[in-house]
């Protein structure tokens, strides 16, 4: 909320500069975004009188003026404005003066004639029409009033104030007002808050009941409605001070009557509305929920169809105002308005918010109602408005007030202990100090030893939990800076990371050690992304949880797999010209079909690896997955067939104890095309929750071998289609207990072997823990594993 400092100063002293003031306010909890010095760029511009005005000898439009600026000699100024004339009182930028936009005025010559300054237009001074009427009409600014020659023009133009921009906390709607801010200012700076004395002079005839009847049908949405009537309304421009205040607060000046309602809203926090009573059919105001399809054209000229249930201020026939949000065009105040009804009501915050959203209208008024307007203070605001009507001679206030307030809210009383109030803050605030602070904040305080009985001022609605609130009030004024730092006391707790986090950290360490970069994608995706994977129709991942109010189609469902995002990210890196990358993402996927006991979708932690580049192939990524799993104590076997979105000949499952723990492979060319990937890529999918379940601890070390080992190499020739993995597995099993290690070390293909044949070389290591093995034992073991190779896989020793 923007407020000119002059306005605050009317009610609380500010004996410090704007910067200090801002910091003091911040430190008692009234946020300040910043401040702006109006007219900050204007300097050295004074009031001058044009004594003579003669045509320039070398120009058909310039004039040479003698201008008296209150100095010994008049200045000679060459002026090009068509409206310049002798006798005018004008703003004069003297030699060395500064104007907005970094302009500096220097003495010089114009077409051979000396010019010692410049006569300014309103625009050149950066003065808005709100502050000086008709200021932007063609040519120089001509003052209508008399001012001393040589006087600084800034105060005249309202360019001598500083506007503070407050950032009011959600629980302090009372500070969305000048009075609220002035109260806080007085506390922050130790000055006094003085509210204006409000007296209403009633010069109107009769009683309000002669003019209007008000009926509130839906008191749940309108718990209080205050109305007064002004007769013989004299609509006209507002005085300069009122225009300046409104301008500083960021509002436009309309006319005296409307400006008063806005002024009162800004000053008291109570939105008001003014109805042209002649346009209120039947002179009957009915506050009721609109009927479906009722129609209103609002002040901004836009037509709205109201929905059933939205609150409207109606006349006998139709809605005349969208309650708390915007008035209707028909009952708008105009130059011909004779009688006005002022409304100062309280509307339900939630209902106002819903209606404001539904109709797409946001106003200063609706914003205040949404945050909560105080039900106990609208009468005061109404009286303030009527006082101003009289003071500005804008009409005759009619005696009588309508105040429909069926369920008055009583004073709120809170009790508490001084010791506990202070204890919570961690600062030793003495009881007398607590009392002093609360009184300064306008609380009514009765202290009896340690116990306090506190009456909450009517403008504070945020004091709802008692002692804790009083702690905050005491502390914020005493000073948050005073809070000392103490370390936790009491029973210690073991602390530590969760098992889930430890695993995630371990996986991150292992993968980053192998050159992987961690990526993060949004949890929501386009429903189209998963379609690109070409999953079978019954795949459970096709069922993705929709968000009811997504930002857009592209982020409308919760992802059931990390794969599409990984593919998209790989494609992005390819398109950005990154030659080779290794990426991983460890994140949650969501399954709406399986619900928890609380009916929440199941969340599973998944891990996806992705890689491409010259050095990458199926085996490099499989090795990473195997290494990762082995480090976590999970031994796997490789089995053919993985996922449908992977290359059918280059996809596999890593299986442990009958469970698939990893799907891995090269991305299917079709899928690659759909994701617009320009190169082959590999991905692997794992399930961190499953890994957490399957992982095994390391256990104890094996004894160091005491007897020598014996190695035997073997080349077997077999059909090209024979899979080496199962072959090696079977040979290892046949090798018996003395076989310590079995591995493949070469594959050889040659026409000599015959068509579709390959020769595979293996190395076996034998060792017994308790003896040196004999040739016979090793020979027997080799025989067995050879037999297994031949019988199960048709692999025979290379001749």
């Amino acid at each position: 909320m923007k407020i000119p400092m002059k306005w605050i100063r009317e009610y609380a002293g500010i004996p410090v500069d704007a910067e200090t003031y801002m910091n003091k306010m911040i430190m008692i909890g009234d946020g300040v975004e910043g401040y702006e010095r109006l007219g900050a760029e204007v300097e050295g511009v004074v009031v001058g009188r044009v004594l003579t005005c003669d045509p320039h000898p070398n120009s058909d439009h310039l004039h040479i003026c003698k201008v008296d600026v209150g100095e010994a000699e008049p200045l000679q100024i060459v002026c090009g404005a068509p409206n310049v004339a002798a006798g005018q009182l004008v703003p004069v930028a003297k030699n060395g003066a500064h104007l907005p936009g970094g302009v500096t005025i220097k003495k010089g010559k114009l077409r051979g004639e000396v010019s010692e300054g410049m006569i300014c237009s309103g625009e050149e001074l950066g003065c808005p029409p709100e502050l000086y009427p008709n200021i932007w009409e063609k040519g120089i600014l001509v003052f209508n009033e008399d001012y001393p020659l040589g006087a600084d023009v800034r105060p005249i133009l309202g360019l001598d104030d500083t506007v503070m921009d407050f950032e009011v906390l959600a629980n302090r709607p009372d500070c969305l007002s000048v009075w609220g801010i002035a109260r806080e200012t007085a506390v922050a700076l130790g000055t006094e808050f003085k509210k204006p004395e409000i007296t209403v002079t009633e010069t109107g005839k009769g009683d309000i009941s002669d003019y209007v009847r008000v009926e509130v049908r839906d008191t749940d949405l309108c718990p209080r409605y205050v109305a007064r009537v002004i007769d013989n309304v004299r609509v006209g421009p507002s005085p300069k001070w009122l225009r300046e205040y409104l301008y500083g607060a960021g509002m436009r000046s309309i006319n005296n009557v409307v400006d008063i309602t806005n002024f009162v809203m800004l000053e008291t926090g109570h939105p008001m509305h003014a109805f042209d009573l002649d346009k209120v059919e039947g002179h009957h105001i009915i506050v009721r929920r609109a009927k479906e399809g009722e129609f209103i054209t609002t002040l901004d000229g836009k037509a709205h169809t109201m929905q059933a249930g939205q609150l409207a201020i109606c006349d006998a026939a139709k809605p005349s105002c969208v309650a708390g949000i915007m008035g209707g065009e028909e009952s708008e105040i105009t130059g011909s308005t004779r009688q006005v009804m002022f409304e100062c009501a309280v509307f339900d915050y939630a209902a106002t918010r819903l209606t404001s959203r539904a109709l797409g209208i946001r106003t200063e008024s609706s914003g205040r109602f949404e945050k909560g307007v105080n039900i106990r203070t609208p009468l005061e605001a109404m009286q303030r408005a009527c006082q101003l009507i009289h003071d500005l001679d804008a009409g005759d206030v009619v005696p009588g007030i309508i105040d429909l307030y069926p369920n008055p809210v009583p004073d709120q009383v809170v009790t508490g202990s001084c010791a506990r109030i202070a204890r919570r803050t961690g600062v030793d605030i003495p009881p007398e100090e607590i009392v002093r602070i609360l009184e300064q904040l306008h609380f009514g305080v009765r202290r009896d030893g340690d116990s306090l009985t506190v009456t909450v001022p009517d403008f504070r609605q945020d004091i709802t939990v008692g002692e804790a609130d009083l702690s905050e009030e005491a502390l914020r004024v005493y000073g948050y800076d005073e809070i000392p730092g103490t370390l936790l006391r009491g029973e210690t707790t073991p602390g530590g990371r969760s098992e889930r986090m430890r695993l995630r950290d371990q996986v991150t360490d292992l993968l980053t050690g192998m050159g992987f970069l961690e990526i993060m994608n949004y949890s929501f995706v386009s429903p189209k992304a998963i379609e690109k994977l070409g999953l079978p129709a019954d795949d459970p991942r096709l069922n993705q949880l929709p968000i009811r109010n997504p930002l857009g189609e592209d982020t409308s469902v919760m992802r059931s797999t990390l794969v599409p995002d990984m593919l998209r990210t790989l494609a992005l890196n390819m398109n950005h010209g990154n030659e080779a990358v290794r990426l991983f993402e460890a994140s949650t996927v969501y399954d709406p079909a399986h619900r928890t006991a609380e009916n929440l979708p199941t969340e599973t932690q998944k891990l996806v690896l992705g890689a491409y580049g010259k050095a990458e192939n199926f085996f490099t990524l499989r090795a990473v997955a195997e290494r990762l799993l082995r480090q976590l104590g999970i031994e796997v076997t490789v089995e053919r067939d993985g996922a449908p979105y992977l290359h059918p000949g280059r996809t596999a499952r890593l299986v442990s104890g009958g469970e698939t723990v990893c799907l891995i492979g090269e991305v299917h060319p079709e899928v690659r095309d759909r994701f617009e990937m320009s190169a082959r890529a590999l991905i692997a999918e794992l399930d961190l929750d499953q890994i957490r379940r399957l992982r095994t601890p390391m256990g104890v070390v094996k004894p160091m071998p005491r007897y020598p080992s014996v190695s035997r190499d073997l080349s077997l020739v077999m059909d090209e289609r024979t899979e080496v993995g199962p072959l090696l597995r079977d040979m290892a099993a046949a090798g018996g207990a003395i076989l310590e290690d079995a591995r493949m070390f070469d594959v050889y293909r040659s026409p000599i072997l015959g068509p579709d044949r390959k020769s595979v070389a293996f190395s076996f290591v034998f060792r017994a823990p308790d003896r040196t093995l004999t040739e016979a034992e090793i020979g027997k073991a080799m025989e067995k594993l050879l037999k297994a190779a031949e019988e199960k896989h048709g692999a025979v020793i290379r001749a």
Partner: protein
Amino acid sequence: MGMRETIDQMRQMMSQELEKVCDKQTLEALRVRVLGKKGELTALLRGMGQLSPEERPAAGQLINDAREKFTAMLEARQDALRAMERATALQRENIDVTEPAPLPPAGSAHPVNIVMREMVDCFTGMGFEVVEGPEIELDHYNFELMNIPKNHPARDAQDTFYIDDNIVLRTHTSPMQARTMLTRKPPIRIICPGRVFRSDEADATHSPVFHQMEGLVVDRDVTMADLRGTLNAFAERVYGKGITTRFRPSFFPFTEPSTEVDLTCSACHGKGCRVCKGTGWIEVLGAGMVNPRVLEMCGIDSTVYSGFAFGIGLDRIAMMRYAVPDLRLMYEGDARFLGQFR
């Protein structure tokens, strides 16, 4: 010629020959020529039979001395030859050690997780336990128990993603406060890092997905001073010596009193710079004393226990620490960006 002269001659010959020897074979030939079975010195030994018994011991001594001497000379030469060979080999194996070699690819955790882990380390060291909760959360925990009643503006669809009337994407990590208090007894010291969601369009400083870390302490007699002490310790551990906190009054529905917490700007150490917009402080987190109403709703007697809670925005901290100009870079996955972190 006497024996002594003969041996002297032999020695001279050997010295001269050894000088010339530059390979093992020649050396061996020389050894055989002098010390071999048919060698010159061996022949001398054999010739001893012709000497008188009185002469023999001295002659024997002379020959043995010569054998030892010649063996030593041969060995010395052999050692020298070996050293020369090794030197040549080393010379031959010389490489250009300045030649650039491809590095193994550098991996890295995501910047948000780098920051998260640092903080987790810091708080677990102070006895905090990590708890993790669901990302898709019941309205009840996300709002109701956090003292954000129905129709509160924070629950607006403009801020919150809804799955249905009762289920939302959690808008903060705070619901884990409620879940923890409902299932544990004080003393409670937990942190809850995780992913949260707000209905914000992505731009340079906003993201619909971001990360927070919640902290909660509930015990007897916990005060704002404990909150400050804990956060001061955190500031120093994570940002270095001399970094401290500034508390500013604020408002959150689930804490009372509430505070915004600024840390000394680590770029200028509080002097004021571009990073902190001249204030010397960086706004880092929100915190406060747990609202007694929240304690009561979660089944904790607020007349016996009090607590503090804080919530840190991790993306923002990562952004500031690494001067990341646009938050969207964090979620784009470009290796040129991610590859810079370590």
